[in-house]
């Protein structure tokens, strides 16, 4: 099962490598990983999407909690949550294709953020599933380059992950 684990950790050099190292050392899977400082510059927020059964996810959260740099963490997928990922994608857009790309982009509420006579560069946010669907709709032969940010997530409602 796919999980989104959100981690608050000390914004220290080496902290990220400890988290990433833990996943490779213990054979856990990383689907995507995002990390950046929070409003408190001493803290970083890391979001990792991973796949595993309950046993694996339990160990992942316990082992992450054992890392001295990890302050707090939550498995967002245990409750209601929002999930967003951003994609920047270069698409062949010439001739008749050009209008079709624009239409598809509108349907998915993407924005064309750069244009050349043969290419549209599109920015789109949403769940990972939505981004996958957009790439499928465009079609592999038209896609020139894909950059995905990895998943960021936050709990719905009043639950807050903070120190």
């Amino acid at each position, binding site marked *: 099962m796919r999980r989104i684990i959100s981690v608050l*950790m*000390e914004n220290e*050099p*080496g902290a990220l*490598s*400890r988290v990433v*190292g833990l996943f490779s*050392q213990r054979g856990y899977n990383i689907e995507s990983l995002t990390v950046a400082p929070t409003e408190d510059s001493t803290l970083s927020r890391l979001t990792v999407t991973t796949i595993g059964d309950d*046993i694996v996810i*339990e*160990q992942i959260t*316990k*082992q992450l*909690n*054992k890392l*001295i*740099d*990890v*302050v707090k963490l939550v498995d967002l997928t245990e409750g209601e949550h929002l999930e967003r990922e951003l994609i920047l994608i270069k698409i062949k857009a010439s001739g008749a294709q050009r209008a079709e790309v624009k239409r598809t982009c509108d349907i998915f509420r993407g924005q064309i953020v750069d244009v050349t006579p043969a290419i549209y560069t599109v920015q789109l946010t949403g769940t990972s599933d939505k981004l996958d669907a957009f790439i499928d709709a465009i079609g592999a032969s038209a896609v020139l380059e894909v950059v995905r940010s990895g998943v960021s997530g936050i709990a719905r409602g009043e639950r807050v992950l903070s*120190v």
Partner: protein
Amino acid sequence: MELLSGGEMIMRALKVEGVKMIFGYPGGAVLHIYDALYQQDAVEHILVRHEQAAVHAADGFARSTGEVGVSLVTSGPGATNAITGIATAYMDSIPLVVISGNVPSHLMGTDAFQETDMIGCCRPIVKHSFLVRSIEEIPSVMKKAFHIAKSGRPGPVVVDVPKDMTAPTEKRPFEYPETVKMRSYTPALKGHAGQIRKALDLLLEARRPVIYAGGGVVLGDAAEELTAIAKRLGYPVTNTLMGLGAFPGSDDQFIGMLGMHGFYEANQAMHQADVIFAVGARFDDRVTNNPKKFCPNARIVHIDIDPASIQKTVRHIEVPLVGPVKSVLADMVEMLNQMDVEPDQSALSAWWETINGWREKHGLWTGDRFTRRGKIMPQDVIRTLYEVTNGEAFICSDVGQHQMFAAQYYKYDQPRRWINSGGLGTMGFGLPAAMGVQLAHPESPVAVVTGEGSIQMCIEELSTCTQYNMPVKIINLNNAALGMVKQWQDMQYGGRYAASTYADSLPDFVKLAEAYGHVGIIVTDPSELKAKMEQCFSMKDRVVFMDIYIDPDEHVYPMQIPTGSMKDMILSKTGPTK
């Protein structure tokens, strides 16, 4: 405020932390620290002959005292040589602070001479690590390093210090913090009262209980509390390899070590138990055998300081209880004394009858577990060692068959007397660990139980023993082969001894011992074993190397059948190997 250099700060921090002794090896990157060491007298330095031994010696010191062991090594090869020692300590949760030098900050990342990314190298085998980035932070880094090493589930902490951080010309104000507060690290100090109550309720319902106690009891200084609750309940106790000594080995309630080479009665009792009380043990693969077949009828209470150890391999834990074993067990005894409930005595005595039946039939001490073939049997060596030392020696083991015999046949009545590399299984651990133990306990007999394979992995330390007058006794069970490897080759590879023998090229250990200034004794005849062992231990101020030629064909039994359940065991070899 007092101005100190980084090197002086490190030495001062050690003094404030109460460190009397460190083990190390100098080199370019730590020369400033060594110069600061030279100019103080609070901390004694032991110069080993190899950095691996520096860490094992600090480790032995820590295991036998409960204090934090400290090593000091230089950058590059000094640091990488320390890695095996650090991994050994990590696997057994031993509190260590390892200070490694590094190249000056401005050279880091340039592949400078003797540069190694120590923080990167040691990442998966430390509890935590620090790279010192300013002289000012040295006091707080040292304080945190000691705090992290010894609190919660203990473990090794590396402090990597670039050379420019210790320059004698760069002095900074020194103030050592009195307390540590880390928002990201708050180990549990008490067990949850509700869970403790649940645990007791379950324990009191038991009809076939077993107390399964591990290294956490030793590390958590909870042997007294464990013994108290075991005595109060009257339940059988089994210890893991790491837990030996957590409950008195010569007590009738002790049913022996459990696991791969555990006692028959211990493994049977575990398998048949209806309630298992796991205390500071981690359901290691060398204990559980196949976890899917592990104790199918048992309801399990598990106390551990580390939440990640609970439900890691064996999933059916009914009452998880996170906390320090000492306080949790003390709380349990107190609660027990207030409750008006007793275990079912008739069920318990029937259970004891069953266990005693197993013990009589196949017990290590009661049944005849092996056939003597006119040669010195390794089991008899350990029995003799036990007799000659009255069970009071510190036994530092290496890794292999001799380790299992020493675990089976020496009865450990006290914690911290059995010193071995259980988790990592590091050959070469015994002798350097024994040095740390001997220095911590100068008046006590310290024996290294080893084999001619393991001892050669850190044999250079015989020189360190000379320099610092550490009169350890080396009990070398010489079977002229890598015994445990050979045993597996006998059992699973049709006796094809791939790279496990070297009989023609072994050194003359007696001469070797003498070359280092020690006493060497050779034993080949079973009838002279005891007298020579007595002679060995009568030389209180000498290192004695007993080279004992044992039956080379002996296997370690009992042994669990791989992929089976706890109870599935091979009890003996029908005849000699071939």
